């Protein structure tokens, strides 16, 4: 392996060969692989990003496709062929309505605190609901909020994106409409100014803008 790397220090393999390599790596694993990891595994000088573009086109319309999952890439069967598959995998536990709604709120409002989730749903969120989503690896802890008590926030994970076939959180259905309708703002009840209002807006903007830069 080292030899290969040494050799190719001077010359990267042709792009067609790089495409084969990316194909093999993505094929071999069930988990999404980041471009950085691809580059690390491929010979020196290879450009996984470019090779990926070629590969993606090649698989366009095939039974298997190359999909982007957050910052990573994976191969997945085409959704229209799902009927051919034996559902060998254990069905995931049926999620409660509370869990599904909580998940949606985290996805659309991330990073979001538990108090904010409760504010939106109008009821308290049970520990079990959050735990279940954490266990499914659909949500994760984000950074703490800079408000009194420094509460933890929740965000969706790469596994969430992978599960729902999303390239990024930006691609959530209806996100734009919700934003323009002001429904993603954290609006404090009148007369109770929220200490973190500015911070909140900042966080939201930051997240989606940061995403948009990708």
């Amino acid at each position, binding site marked *: 392996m080292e030899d290969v790397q040494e050799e190719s220090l001077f010359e990267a393999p042709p792009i067609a060969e790089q495409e084969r390599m990316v194909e093999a790596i993505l094929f071999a*694993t069930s988990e999404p692989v980041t471009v950085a990891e691809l580059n690390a595994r491929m010979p020196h000088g290879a450009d996984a990003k470019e090779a990926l573009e070629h590969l993606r086109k090649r698989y366009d319309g095939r039974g298997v496709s190359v999909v982007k999952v957050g910052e990573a890439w*994976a191969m997945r069967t085409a959704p229209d062929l799902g009927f051919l598959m034996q559902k060998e995998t254990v069905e995931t536990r049926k999620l409660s309505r509370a869990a*599904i709604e909580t*998940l*949606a709120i985290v996805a659309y409002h991330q990073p979001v605190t538990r108090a904010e989730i409760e504010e*939106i749903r109008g*009821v308290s969120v049970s520990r079990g609901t959050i735990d279940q989503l954490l266990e499914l690896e659909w949500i994760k802890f984000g950074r703490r909020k800079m408000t009194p008590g420094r509460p933890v926030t929740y965000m969706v994970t790469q596994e969430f994106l992978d599960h*729902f076939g999303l390239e990024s959180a930006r691609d959530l259905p*209806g996100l734009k409409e919700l934003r323009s309708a002001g429904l993603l703002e954290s609006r404090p009840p009148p007369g109770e100014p929220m200490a973190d209002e500015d911070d909140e807006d900042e966080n939201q903007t930051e997240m989606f803008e940061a995403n948009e830069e990708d």
Partner: protein
Amino acid sequence: MDGDTQFGEVEERLAAEALIVDVDGFEGPLDLLLVLSRTQKVDLLKISVLALAEQYLEFVERAKTLRIELAADYLVMAAWLAFLKSRLLLPPDPEDEGPSGEELAAHLAFQLERLSAMRDCAAKLMARDQKNRDFFVRGIPEDVTRVRKVRYTATLLDLMQGYARLKTRDDFRPYVMDRDHVMTLEQALDRMHGLIGYAGEWTDLLSYLPEGWETDPQRRRSATASHFAASLELVKNGAIQIRQTDLFAPIQIKAR
């Protein structure tokens, strides 16, 4: 026309009763308000919060007459909506501080709209193609062997220094000298293996000590210890029996 209205009222009342019976099915007052607001059959943006407040209060009243115990948060909401209703109906008091009834109503409408929107989103999300249901991952993943190469940095110098360290220690504490006064377990075992056949009777263990080891105290100690350990080993192997009749009495052995 009249009949229609009446029929509408009946329908509404039935619906309200159904709501009450189903009160456990609601996820709190906001959820209930959202369901009630749907009966207005208008866009949530244009909802009449006043009408909604009235509907809710009516609901709570009916629950009371039916002697249905409502959870505290339903009652808190009822109190708040009663307050909101009075604010909306009475002309604003210029002395009064705090938000106006319209502001409070607008916020409630916003909350309802937001909750409703999130529910739609949740439904849309769950309706998406899902992994291992609609699309699938690689069925035979090939292992990416994580070759954790630990590169040890021992050099020849390390090696020589290590050896030198050992040898230096020898210079200070020559083993050869020590060894003159030490009898190892193996040595004692070897000796006893050869002699044990002769011990048909109970014999003092100390009589087995080799010549020249009984007098020098250091040598005697070492030989006694190693012979004792060796005899235990032989007992374990079933070759001999061992006994000591009293504290500090001679230890005796006998072939089996």
